[in-house]
């Protein structure tokens, strides 16, 4: 497989219908190569999150095609989609989305459990992922006992624990201070360095500078490609 990981053609997403319909994506085209580090920028409400959710197979487009590794995702059934989300994609949410009242370790282990990985190996890999984000000492803390930056790092550890081919991050540094942002970006940089495809959404130019390529979304379309 040498083609692009992501190939999006004429992607449209409409929320609601009739007079109140919101056209979040209006015929968007995008190609992301293997091992690329892409930053998506754009004004608030321009459709960035909508796009990333579709790329992460968390949502489906109204029309248009999304080819993942050359295969149209519209052909996948529900069980195939959960398999994709589990094995191929690591998703980092702006609002962390950790399971409450559950330790950091258990949260990181979660995708491995659904992947059917044995207990001992699961422990080991979850520990390694937490170590990578520098939170091994917080393994047994619940999310409400962690700072925002620490929660985001746990979420990143969860996204990368399955060694997915691509990591999608929606404003991963949006809620973090400069120091925490730097740590989180450092982790993403290292992931990209070992060959993972990284796509992140950001409002900050300094963050976008980490990427090898930046696209700007305006009104649900890719307006210009900045290099």
């Amino acid at each position: 497989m040498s083609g692009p990981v992501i190939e999006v053609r004429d992607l449209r997403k409409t929320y609601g219908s009739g007079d109140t319909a919101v056209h979040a994506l209006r015929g968007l085209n995008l190609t992301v190569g293997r091992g690329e580090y892409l930053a998506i920028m754009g004004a608030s409400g321009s459709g960035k999150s909508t796009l990333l959710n579709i790329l992460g197979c968390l949502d489906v487009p109204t029309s248009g095609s999304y080819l993942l590794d050359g295969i149209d995702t519209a052909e996948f059934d529900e069980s195939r989609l959960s398999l994709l989300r589990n094995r191929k994609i690591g998703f980092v949410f702006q609002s962390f989305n950790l399971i409450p009242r559950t330790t950091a370790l258990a949260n990181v282990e979660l995708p491995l459990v659904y992947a059917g990985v044995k207990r001992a190996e699961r422990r080991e890999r979850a520990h390694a992922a937490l170590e990578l984000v520098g939170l091994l000492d917080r393994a047994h803390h619940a999310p409400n006992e962690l700072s925002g930056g620490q929660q985001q790092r746990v979420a990143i550890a969860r996204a990368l624990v399955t060694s997915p081919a691509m990591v999608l991050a929606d404003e991963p540094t949006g809620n973090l201070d400069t120091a925490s942002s730097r740590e989180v970006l450092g982790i993403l940089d290292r992931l990209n360095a070992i060959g993972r495809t990284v796509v992140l959404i950001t409002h900050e130019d300094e963050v976008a500078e980490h990427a090898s390529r930046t696209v700007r979304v305006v009104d649900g379309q890719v307006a210009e490609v900045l290099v």
Partner: protein
Amino acid sequence: MRLLEIGVFAVRGVTANKLRSTLTTLGILIGVASVILLIAVGNGASTAVQQSIAGLGTNILTISPQRGTPQSASSAKPLTVADATALADRTEAPDVKSASPVSSVAATASFQGTSYSVPQFVGTDPAYFETTNSAVANGNLFTADDVLQARKVVVLGATVATSLFPSTDPVGNAVLVNNIPFTVIGVLATKGSSGLQDSDDLAVSPLTTVQNALTGYGGLTQIVVQATSADSLPAAQAQATTILNGRHRIGAGQTADYRMLSQEQLLTARTATTDTFTVLLASVAAISLLVGGIGITNIMLVTVTERIREIGIRKAVGAPKSTILGQFLLEATMLSLFGGALGVAAGVIGSQFTIAGIKPVVVPSSVLLAFAVSALIGLFFGSYPASRAASLRPIEALRHE
């Protein structure tokens, strides 16, 4: 993904939010316990009524004079002691065990200034006590010899005894009945009330004494006949009819000058009461099941709605729908079974106490019904919303408020 892992998730889900799980368990517990307890109380009340009816005896015939039959106004014969003796004849009436002549009257009894009007001052023979299931609680019953000698002795019913002797032991004391002194020789054990009538509100003396002192030697009020067993009651009734018709010269087709009623006929008349109780019981069961069911539904819906975001997170990291469903089904099962078991325990323990004067009697089928219905409701409303949520796209579940 093995079953064990789903089990671990379910246990974690239950233990992660202890307050939520406790409330859910409590909801089911209250539902199950209230159904069991309410039905037990209803059943206890119905059992009490039935027992007091059965306490009257099912092998009894009561013969009383028929008053006001037009054609027999002149020829009507009163019931006599001789009639009673004839009814007890072994060869003529082999199925009759005993026949007690009864002459009863309302009388005023007094002791040391306290007076009490006894609605039934009964004069009879000793067999009467066995026939009416009356046991002595204190002292003695009178004997055949007392009847022969017409001794002025009396056995008091519990109500009469407590009214006249609130603090002292009545046995050995003399009470004045219509100003005639009677020695109290015993007190009957309480039988409770059957319907409106208090069966402890009476006093019993030898027939001869009562006739001597109070009623005179006219006709009897009643003859109480006891058959040898409940099964031989129809035979005893036939024999008694033949004997009395012979003695009172009543030919075929003529109206008798006496009335014969079996306790069974009285029982049939009172089945209406029992039917009312059954209907009451059924409505109590239905209402408590409904109330319990709504409570369980409520808590389960709240619990699952609260966790739709969690379902979204699990889907986002690649959980298949079936696994999520399994976890929530298992959680609902654990809480329902646990809450149900505690509810059964609470209901059964609660039924050991007397509630509002009624001793509850647990109906085994109500335990099963309450447990099954609650568990099913818990299971359904614990897993159905979860299955709806698991069918959503991850992003929809995550956005759920």
